[in-house]
């Protein structure tokens, strides 16, 4: 790729980045352009992935392999896939059901034992494990082990659907809510840094693109956008005055 293309790329990348950021000020034509371009580019990206990673190796090649078994194993899902297209013809659109029912069964069947194993048995184990050597723990560790066990039970009680949360039940489910609050707060707070780092990364790239090597791409685009918003503001207030 030539140097020129890389500089052009930097200009495009800087412009699209700033166009998306401009949405934070308000919706505007530049954002709309970036947004629609993004839909196209996103679909285009998936199109080429599906074409080169699925259509060619998993459909085209087996069909041309001459092995009847392989061909058969492609033709069935291909027919199921094609059945989805009946969606465009309302009268026979029910045929599209065949396209996904097998998926529903397959994934429902897979979900059951794995759900029981990792999220049920493993979690019981994780909760009770500290108790196996309970008296060799420090009082603080004892307290923590009990807190986790009791907290988990209270949270689960909060989710009970067939019991009305009254009296003692209300107290238990209230304690559960406090544990949920701590989880929500902690999890929110924990994400802050990751998101700020991302923004730092974007800004850092923009600053990089505003160097002389890229002919000050981001700087020029920021100036352009600012001028646009100023002009729009002046134009709009002038228009308002006229209409008044």
């Amino acid at each position, binding site marked *: 790729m030539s140097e020129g293309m890389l500089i052009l790329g930097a200009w495009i990348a800087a412009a699209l980045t700033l166009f*998306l950021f401009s*949405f934070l000020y308000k*919706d505007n034509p530049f*954002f*709309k352009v*970036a947004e*629609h371009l*993004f*839909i196209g*580019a*996103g*679909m285009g*990206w*998936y199109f080429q992935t599906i074409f080169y990673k699925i259509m060619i190796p998993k459909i085209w090649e087996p069909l041309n392999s001459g092995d009847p078994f392989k061909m058969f194993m492609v033709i069935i899902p291909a027919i199921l896939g094609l059945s*989805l297209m009946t*969606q465009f013809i309302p009268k026979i*659109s029910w045929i*599209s059901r065949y*396209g*996904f029912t097998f*998926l*529903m069964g*397959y*994934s429902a069947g897979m*979900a*059951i*034992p794995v759900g*029981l*194993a990792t999220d*049920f*048995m*493993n*979690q*019981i*184990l994780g*909760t*009770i494990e500290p*108790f*196996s*050597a*309970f*008296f060799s723990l420090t009082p603080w560790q004892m307290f923590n082990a009990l807190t986790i*066990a009791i907290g*988990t*039970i209270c949270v*689960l009680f909060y*989710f*009970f*659907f*067939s*019991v*009305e*949360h009254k009296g003692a039940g209300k107290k238990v489910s209230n304690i559960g809510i406090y544990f*949920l609050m701590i*989880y*929500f*707060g902690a*999890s*929110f707070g924990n*994400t802050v840094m990751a998101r700020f780092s991302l923004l730092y990364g974007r800004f850092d790239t923009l600053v990089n693109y505003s160097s002389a090597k890229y002919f000050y791409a981001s700087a020029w685009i920021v100036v352009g956008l600012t001028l646009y918003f100023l002009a729009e503001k002046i134009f709009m207030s002038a228009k308002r005055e006229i209409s008044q």
Partner: protein
Amino acid sequence: MKNTSILVSAFLILTSYSSFCAPKAGKAAAPSPIKMELKNFEALDFPYDKGETGLLKWDHTEELNDASFSVMISTISEKEGWIEADTFKAGEKTADKVNLPFWAFKKDKNKYAVPVELNNVLSSEIKQDVPFFAKVKIIKGKNSFESQTASAAARGNWFRADRLNNLLLFLFVSIVFFIIVSHAKKKSLFIRRIAGLDAIDEAIGRATEMGKPIFYVPGIGVMSQISTIASTFVLGEVAKKVAQYDSYIKVPHYDPIVMTVSKEIVKQAYTEAERPDSYKEDINVFISHDQFSYAANVDGMISREKPAACFYIGYFMAESLLLAEVGASIGAIQIAGTDVDHQLPFFFTACDYPLLGEELYAAGAYLSKEPMLVSALKVQDFGKLVFMISVALFSLLLIIGSKMNWQGLSSTLTEILKVY
């Protein structure tokens, strides 16, 4: 059980085989004056696997103390092609260290049990049952001795006895499920209030009054995800109410198959509300099959069309806050539900009515009051009860056990609950 019979027959074949060929191997490799033998050395198929692993066993004897072993494997013949598969010291790799539960494997501390992963040893993918030869080099000080040769075939087994705990739990859950569901009564069962779902009426009502649209965002799940299935259920009920109020709903989609299903559901809802003529094809729109362009476009739509109510129900990742915050900035009533635990904090803080985790699954039953579905909720409650009781009971047992020094209790309990 079938397993044991396979094991036994394998054992018989092998012991006969190894006793048959042992003398030969012994003669060939006996340069040293002092002879060390492995007692009861045998090669077996490793149980409960798909046929890529063999198992070598021999007894621990006094003379093996502070020796070390080098396990040799050949898949060609007992004369050539030996590859070193494993090396370890005496006392390591005894049968009690094999990662299998007590009901599936005899955990004898005085026996060595060495799994041999043929895949790794041969560094090639194994596609069928593989016969192999095995011998062990015993290294003690400067001397080394070779054991007799044994052979077996690694074969695919038919049942994972180590997952018996999981299977029993599954059977238990399904029996309870069928008992409760088949006794579903016509009269309505009690369900506790779920604030997020009660707010649906309020949200739709407000949108109707203000003459503004309603957005229903089903997230970025595919049809086979449970949260998406739950979401289509809620969509059905919401669409029915929208049709009754004669309001306007828009459903932007990420996955085309989910869109296909949603179209049927919304159409059906309009028919049930006796407004089939109000149904429009452009209620369900496809946006993009790419996470962030989907979020960007839905954000744009929300900020332009200014809906009075936004529903975010289904499977969400990072876009949860991208959507909810834009919705909040235009002052829409927001109802959100997902089972993705790490996105719940964002829905919880940015939306008016969050449905937390499981409440999403309960939504279908809550809104439709269909006896079958409501009784399935009971099964869910029952499952939670089982969890609570087992945690309480097991921890009590463990605490008492650790006070009374009951040996083996904790390892037994651990193995019962462990995932293999």
